[in-house]
């Protein structure tokens, strides 16, 4: 069981908070800290759930608060899901109706593209 959080610089101004493995109340505060810190620096923020196998409602709270914080800071905010995302994660998003409320994309690269400001987006993507 791996439960890790990483912060990566994807492109200029874009930070990716990578959520791997299982996350619940125990690590939710740390995730909140990562998202808040990134929100003060980045122009675009991706929460990468492509390797997350489990999240609980505490993590959902953080994802919700991150969305509003990013909006308040005027930065782009996208949550990336992928094939590696655990069923428990997608099921929870579905059950809570957050799959329609949170800015979700399929794939990490698509998420990064989505948060790159228009001017700096590569011509070909």
């Amino acid at each position: 069981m791996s439960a890790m959080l990483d912060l990566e610089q994807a492109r200029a101004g874009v930070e990716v908070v990578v959520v791997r493995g299982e996350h619940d109340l125990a690590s939710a505060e740390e995730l909140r800290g990562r998202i808040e810190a990134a929100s003060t620096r980045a122009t675009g923020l991706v929460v990468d759930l492509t390797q997350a196998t489990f999240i609980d409602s505490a993590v959902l709270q953080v994802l919700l608060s991150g969305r509003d914080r990013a909006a308040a800071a005027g930065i782009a905010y996208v949550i990336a899901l992928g094939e590696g995302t655990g069923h428990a994660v997608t099921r929870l998003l579905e059950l809570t109706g957050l799959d329609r409320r949170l800015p979700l994309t399929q794939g990490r690269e698509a998420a990064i593209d989505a948060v790159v400001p228009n001017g700096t987006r590569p011509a070909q993507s």
Partner: protein
Amino acid sequence: MSGDATHAPGTDAAQIRARLELVVEVSEMLARAIDIGPALQGVARLATGWLCDLCAIDVLDDEGSPLRVALASSSGDLSTRPGGLWEQPADPASDLMRRVLEQHQVEIAPRPQGAADDQLTVVLPLASRGTVRGCMLICRLGAGHSFAPDDLAVAEDLARRVGLALESAALFDQVTAANRQARDLQRITDAALSAADLDTLLPAVLEPVVSVLGADTAGLLLVDERTEMLVEGASTTVDVGSREWPRIPLGEGVLGRIAAGSGPVAVERMDAAELRSGVVAAQHIRSLAGAPLRVGDRTVGVIYVGTSGMRAFRAAELGLLGRVAARVALAVAHARSFSAEQVARDRLTLLARLGEVLLGDSFDVRVALDELVEALVPRMADWCSITLAGRPPTTASAGQGAYASRWQHLPAELERSPAVSGAARDGRAYLHTWASPADAEEADAGPDGVRSVMIVPLVARAQAMGVMTLVRGVDSAAYDGDDLAFAQELAGRLATALDTARVYRERDAVARTLQRSLLPPSLPSIQGIQMAAVYHPAGAGDVGGDFYDVFEAADGGWFLVVGDVCGKGAEAAALTGLVRHSIRAVALNERRPSRVLKLVNQTLMGEVSDYRFCTVAAARLDVTPDGAIVRVACAGHPPPLVIGPGGRIDVACGPGTLLGVFSDPQLQERQATLGAGDSLVLYTDGVTEIRRDGHIFGEDRLRGLLAESRDLAPAMIADHVERAVLEYKAGAPDDDVALLVVKRTTHD
């Protein structure tokens, strides 16, 4: 050489040979000698055969007094010897002897008054390397006999050889004495080093000191560094254990003066005052030798030996005592730092033990107190107790050996003792030491063999919770300020832990009370319906975020609700209460569960902050003659399941938006009919999201459990699921679990 000497051989050649033989024999005799005394006697005997009629050898002792060590007569009958020099060892004060001893001259003794006319005595010095070690007297009897020059030369040669032999013997003695002293010192040093603490060190050192110095008693007093007084000690003849030594200031009294001095001192005759009382009198010492125990320029005590009779200690003995003192001082300093270290280590151990007891997984006050008092004995106390206020009070006590039972009622006795009466109540820490029984008047003695007591309140947040009593008996050391400070530290930690435990207990009680208020006290009985519920809060003492409710609407229908609020504890409980009561309020006038949830969401939007959301599955149940109709709505919640005919599992509704975050939740509602034997199961994600080793319990597993228990009563279905859940987690689930099973009975 005159030929008329009585024993002289007849010819010159024979005489020369005889003299040579004498010299050779004497040399061999002296060389073979292991002990110089018998050898000198042999020399005297040889000389009387060859050289003279009488021979005596006197040797000076350590003090310079001559001792007669050999005397021989050619006749073998010493009773016929003439008087004068032969009666006693030569008097070194006489002019004759002074000349012999100081000027190394050979002297012809004057004829003493009354002596026979035919007596001639020659006195020869026994000397080597400029030191005279004694004298040899040779005498010829018989009128007209005298010593020829050659005889005198032989006599002088003999005297020189004896002188050299005496020097060797003296050297040997010195070496032997030095060896013995070194051995004695080693014995004492070994004794000192083999004992790590003062209690064993002091007697171990004193025993060899007594035997080495041939004294009747030996003792040792140590300086208390704070008061500069000689306070504690040991003696070979006085039992220190049961008797407190009087404190002696440095510089006062014979021992105080020796301690304050710089080297060993002998006191041949004690002051009359010393003989009346105190340490010296107690040991019946008349003559004493003592030396300060010094480490660097610090005085740590005094060591002494004493005799019950008068005795003059010699310089060599004082020197030895001085060297003993130097070693003992080092050993004492070492032992003291060792015991200081030991005390510090003991205290750390105690604090660690306290931590273990107090921070253990299951903190039980009763058990904790028992373990603590056990840990405090005997390191901190011979007997101790901890009493917590309450009705009835909680008390734990422990004692060493017989003290355990003997002092069981000690706190009550202490309460009657004027010195510490009321200490348990007034919130201050007490330290009281009674005079030792030997010194004390009856009235001053502690109760029932108590020497020293510390009574320390247990105070946390300015509130007295109880009292800790630590007691030492008359055979133990009295408590000091350090001990009290440490006891207060212990009491502080204990009180804080007890207070925390109490807060937790209160919180537990509040949580249980609150929890009860959030759940229906019992499930209602509904015609044609059987119901069962399972509820497990995640951690003891925490109010869970899950809840369920079953209540009747104003129009006779029923609402079934299962919900889950983010988080735990008081805040979650407050939100749970809000949700539960909002649902009840709204459902009074609203039949459709999706509408109910929407209205509850509006309520929550105004109340909830920090994305603390809530998920709810709500069902409206109407029992009709045709069956039970359920309308189900889900707000961010796992959908309720229907166990249908043959164990088919159907989802009772589609997903909907969780409550409390969005002002426009999308909520669906679905209607289903429960036929006879069908069940509706509402549950929280605590059932399905249990994780173990990276796997999740999951909805499919739940569906399987429900399918196989379709024909069971609701309580059995709930039990079946509960068992599986607990087994999967192998222990308490770390999330709340709520499950509500509603079954349409097969006949009504």
